[in-house]
């Protein structure tokens, strides 16, 4: 079975205050679909970080599932019992221009089954996919009682270790390169409420198995498995509180593979599966006034419906720190 992991982090967002330079940016919804990790490192929020700022994120995510959709049928399986997946995620965002940010991320993932289980399979661990993304904001205007922004993100990720993607449900990623293109629209009212919607297309390449025959509604005499492309949709409702130091968000996210086969009865998942899921989540992020640039984030997500996907719930905590690399002194002086 495949499983997903999601992840939602943000650096602080204090766009109007140059000085504390809190990152406002970033790491948006990084979400990692484990077997289909792809989105994993795609920044998808509506924020931009100013030029010359850097934001670093370090987070820890704990996910698990004890049921999964075999095709569209939700089931449990004592062979794998409850599968846990933990992830450590370092990420950095760099403000190249005020309207152009760059991101890089490299998650470390480990998986294992709870005891007792009937399969006695060993888990997996390792660095997953290195991800790069650029986000560009071509449009931001005051409209009515607030501000309307449009953003576009392009991301690329590729496996950095030789982890085996064809080892479900323990494999730590899809094992395939992914290119993503995402359009984001956001409207924020002056009272701090905002809504955001995003639409993305994920192009996934092939992953190489360690066997040269597999069944995918017929024989395939090759080690290469075609990881299906996917379309994602998301909607966010959020609000800033306490003079832009606390941000709360509710999210809905949906991923739909555009091709692929179903997991067969009581059989292991494989990278060619048609994965679909709907996920809801909540996140809170707080930016300290006392320590410039420092923020913390916590979130919880759960998958509520799916196909060939684990019914995964995950919870994470992260710490973010934003600083101005070049003109820190100047900016701080400017701010005063």
């Amino acid at each position: 079975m495949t499983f997903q992991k999601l992840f939602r982090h943000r650096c602080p967002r204090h766009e109007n205050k140059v000085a504390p330079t809190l990152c406002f940016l970033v790491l948006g919804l990084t979400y990692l679909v484990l077997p289909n990790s792809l989105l994993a490192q795609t920044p998808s929020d509506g924020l931009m970080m100013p030029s010359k700022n850097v934001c670093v994120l370090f987070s820890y995510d704990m996910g698990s599932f004890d049921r999964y959709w075999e095709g569209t049928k939700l089931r449990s399986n004592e062979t794998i019992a409850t599968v846990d997946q933990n992830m450590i995620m370092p990420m950095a965002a760099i403000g190249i221009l005020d309207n152009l940010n760059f991101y890089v991320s490299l998650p470390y993932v480990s998986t294992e089954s709870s005891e007792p289980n009937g399969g006695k399979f060993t888990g997996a661990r390792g660095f997953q996919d290195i991800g790069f993304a650029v986000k560009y904001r071509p449009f931001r205007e005051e409209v009515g009682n607030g501000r309307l922004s449009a953003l576009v993100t392009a991301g690329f990720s590729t496996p950095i270790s030789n982890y085996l993607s064809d080892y479900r449900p323990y494999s730590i990623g899809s094992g395939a390169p992914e290119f993503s293109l995402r359009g984001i629209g956001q409207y924020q009212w002056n009272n701090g409420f905002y809504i955001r919607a995003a639409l993305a297309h994920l192009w996934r390449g092939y992953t190489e198995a360690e066997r040269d025959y597999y069944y995918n509604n017929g024989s395939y005499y090759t080690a290469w498995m075609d990881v299906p492309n996917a379309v994602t949709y998301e909607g966010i409702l959020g609000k800033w509180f306490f003079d832009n130091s606390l941000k709360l968000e509710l999210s809905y996210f949906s991923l739909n593979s555009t091709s692929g086969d179903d997991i067969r009865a009581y059989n292991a998942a494989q990278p060619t599966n048609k994965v679909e899921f709907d996920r809801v989540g909540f996140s809170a992020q707080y930016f300290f006034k006392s320590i410039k640039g420092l923020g913390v984030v916590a979130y919880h997500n759960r998958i509520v419906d799916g196909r060939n996907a684990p019914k995964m719930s995950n919870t994470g905590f992260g710490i973010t720190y934003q600083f101005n690399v070049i003109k820190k002194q100047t900016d701080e002086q400017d701010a005063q």
Partner: protein
Amino acid sequence: MNKMRNKILTLISAFALVIFASCEKDTPRYLPYEGYSFTELNENGGDWTPVLEDSGASIAVDEPDASDSQAYQDELAEVKEAMANMTPEQKKAVKYWTNNPAIRWNEIALELIAKYNLIPGPNDDGTYTLPNPANPEGPPAFPFAHPPYACRALAYMSVAQFDGLITAWHYKYEYNRAAPYQLDDAIEYAYEGNNIPSYPSDGAVIARASRKILTAMFPLEAEYLQEMEDENLESLLLSGGYVMSDIDAGLVIGDAVSATGLARAANDGMKNAQTPKAVSDSIKQAAYERFGWAWDNLEIPVRPVGLTPLFGKVTMWSIADVESVRPIPPPQLDSQEFLDDVQLLKDYARNMTDEHRRIANFWQDGLGTYTPPGHWNRIANEMIVKHKLNPLQTTRTLAYMNMAIMDSGISCWDAKYYYHYPRPIQMIENFETIAGTPNFPSYTSGHSVFSAAASEVLAYIFPDEAAKVRGWAEEAAISRVYGGIHWSFDAFVGTDQGREVAQYTIDRAKADGADN
């Protein structure tokens, strides 16, 4: 500002295009060979000794109309008419089936094995329901095409094909009626010419015999298999290689050899191989009393019966008494040899290398795949094409290889349930594996025995490949130790066992007349 905006968007789009363009990979669905010129014709092949039939002459095939008769001329006209009106789909089918369709039918069998190689899961109340041939739809669907089932299906299909082609060769060279493309210059053969008489059609024998055996083995696929047979038969005519009466004569042979094969299959003991729990328990108890150990299934919920406990009682092809090839007993559980193996397995698991992982996965051929017997059929198919064997040699290779594989599997299962030896996960506390532990005892390793037997037959048929295939068999054997699911002596003794068992079939092959 707008300029920069456009530049950035252009860059992003260009990046996307590059990624698109660089990603397409070839993912073949079948062996990419086309019709080819055979290295030999085996004009005396009709004199070879069949496996189940008495001789190449034991199935009656009527003398055909002479090629200068009006009836034959009418048939030729029919071929020309059909060939002149071929659709693109028909042309594609002719190319696909080739002039050696036994390989295509072997691939169809492998695909069905992979499709049906799904172990039934537990019901909500923790019980298990087994596939039932009387109710093939299930759930679970019949069959569960596990390795014993797979090797048996392949053996019966290959034997029927081989017996059928010996018969076809007998009549081809008795009646000597040439191919349409040789009798009429207006007909262009779809493949390279081979100078083998066309009556009866060897392709029709293959299509009919394969379809009938596979339909018996995979009853839910009857319709699909009929479509495949129809397409194969139509392609024979459209290739310019056969007239309808060539094909009809081939069907007579195909019907007869498949009936012989299925009659044997009905009474070979397979239907009793999956025992009730009481029988399974008594087999286990007998082993415990004999040796002081017994294998346990550790799944949750526990499977009450292991896989086919009495497969070891199924009638062998080339050996009268399975106990005559039973391997030596495995080590006592308190012996130094056993304790050393525990340490070996722990070391392999703790220090999993990329190479060990690759080998374990490459030969795993587990649930949902074509199984180890299927893997060796795939290897055989590739070698057959590489060495340009004719259809008769092709089916001889596949028949003896699959007979040896099935005999080796029967011998392996005899050892598994006689010795009932525990698996590593049962004996090593907190042991975890990268491969799935199967639902049957450990000693000896099925992969090792199947692979050794297959490689010995391939080494006999293709002497120049002998070192290579034997090396692969040894790698397949040790792959199970790397995977954490077999002891090293399961693999080593199993390899010896497979080689010994295969020798009986190879001796038979050496005496069938083909080597003279």
